[in-house]
């Protein structure tokens, strides 16, 4: 691998370990999006070398507003490892500047060998949340920067799995300490989270990664991300899917 890209991967991985934001990679050297995905993969390889296992993928830029803001016309994706799964508590002291957003999650129960397999592979659907924690100063980045940084992925939590059903337009609510701080519809996710799942399959197949049975696909957020405070109780609900909660320290 290009030593420039290896150095980028090391920078981002150490930013996580040291809980310290770093300057944007693109401010220090050139980086295109294809290279950025190589950096993303290298960061995950470093995590796997420490014993973490891949358990899914996450989709980013799934809202029209975000695509316009970033000047892109396609989604991006990142990789999820088992160490990112949050049970019911999260210590925010381990994070740089965390944000949280409500998500729809799909559980796969068979391998996705071609993009056409994706919908038939759905074994379960849940409400979830994602904790984002850009490794960049000021949560500010270009497209290549955020792709290299695993689409800002930090952690995620999942509510109870439900049998496959239509989640194209369900209301979603993010409450902090009992007060609604963000709300929207799952339709904000590309018009229907299923489209995001299909995009995940397309991008994974193109990258030569086979989505595996048991993997989770975080389809994207129904609202903009909000800052995640410490000492807070957060609940994310979706109509017909129940809710998931996390308490921060």
């Amino acid at each position: 691998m290009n030593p420039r890209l290896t150095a980028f991967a090391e920078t981002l991985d150490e930013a996580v370990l040291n809980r310290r934001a770093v300057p944007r990679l693109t401010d220090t050297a050139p980086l295109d999006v294809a290279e950025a995905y190589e950096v993303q993969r290298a960061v995950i390889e470093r995590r796997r070398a420490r014993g973490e296992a891949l358990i899914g993928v996450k989709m980013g830029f799934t809202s029209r507003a975000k695509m316009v803001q970033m000047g892109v016309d396609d989604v991006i994706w990142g990789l999820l490892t088992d160490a990112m799964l949050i049970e019911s508590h999260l210590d925010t002291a381990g994070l740089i500047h965390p944000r949280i957003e409500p998500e729809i999650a799909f559980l796969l129960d068979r391998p996705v060998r071609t993009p056409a397999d994706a919908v038939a592979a759905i074994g379960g659907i849940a409400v979830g949340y994602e904790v984002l924690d850009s490794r960049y100063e000021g949560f500010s980045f270009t497209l290549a920067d955020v792709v290299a940084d695993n689409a800002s992925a930090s952690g995620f939590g999942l509510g109870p799995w439900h049998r496959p059903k239509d989640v194209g337009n369900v209301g979603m609510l993010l409450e902090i300490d009992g007060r609604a701080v963000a709300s929207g519809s799952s339709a904000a996710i590309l018009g229907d989270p299923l489209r995001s799942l299909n995009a995940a399959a397309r991008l994974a197949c193109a990258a030569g990664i086979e989505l595996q049975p048991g993997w989770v696909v975080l389809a994207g957020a129904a609202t903009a991300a909000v800052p995640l405070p410490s000492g807070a109780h957060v609940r994310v609900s979706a109509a017909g899917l129940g809710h998931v909660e996390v308490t921060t320290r």
Partner: protein
Amino acid sequence: MTERHQAAAARLLEAYASGRPCEPVRDLIDGVDDAYAVQNLVTERWLSQGRRLAGRKIGLTSKAVQRQLGVDSPDFGMLFADMAVPDGEEIPVGAVLQPRAEAEVALVLDRDLTHERHTVADVIRAAAFALPAIEIVGSRVRDWDITLADTVADNASSGMYVLGNRPVSLRDVDLRMAGMVIERRGDQVSSGIGAACLGHPLHAAVWLADTLVRLGRPLQAGDTVLTGALGPVVPVAPGDVLEARIDGLGDVRAAFAAEKSAEEEV
């Protein structure tokens, strides 16, 4: 004072008549009560012309819009029967000045709401059923350059409205968690949730019922109440067809005619 109100009403009525937006009217209005007085002058004019009052619309129900206008309360305007468009029927170019669309929950009442203070229970008892709706808001004020006073005087920026055709009982729908999406040619152009309307569309209806009693024209059996937008407003262009879906309520369409043909423009 009343002369200034008359002047504001005349400015707005001229915009309706000419099809050309007018300057703001806030220079002629001192506060929100004044603005409702202007709205009422226009309403009285229309009632005297034989237009039938069919209900009310509630506006400024989202936190984001309230912040934008620097207010902490919703507002309301009059719905006349001739502002209602059947589902999917073409809305002529120019029927609404500077049109924009938003998806809402409509309540249709079968009891009057005449108490000084209403509860959610009063509103639930009075609501015969709910319908999905698209409100086509518009502004008689040039470039939507509005303050609270301008929009209140201008009938809360009402234009036309489209109601769905399948009534749903409030016992069968969770309006707080109901998702909302508007699509144009398969693209999602707005999305939201019932809770985005003052926490719950019924809360907006309670506010309206109380406010109308105070102002002397209470809600009556048969009235339609458009309770407020569930998500961001969508700009519309000639030829657009918008489909709104509200989870649990169904779907409804607003179809805008393409530009006028040459012979129509004579």
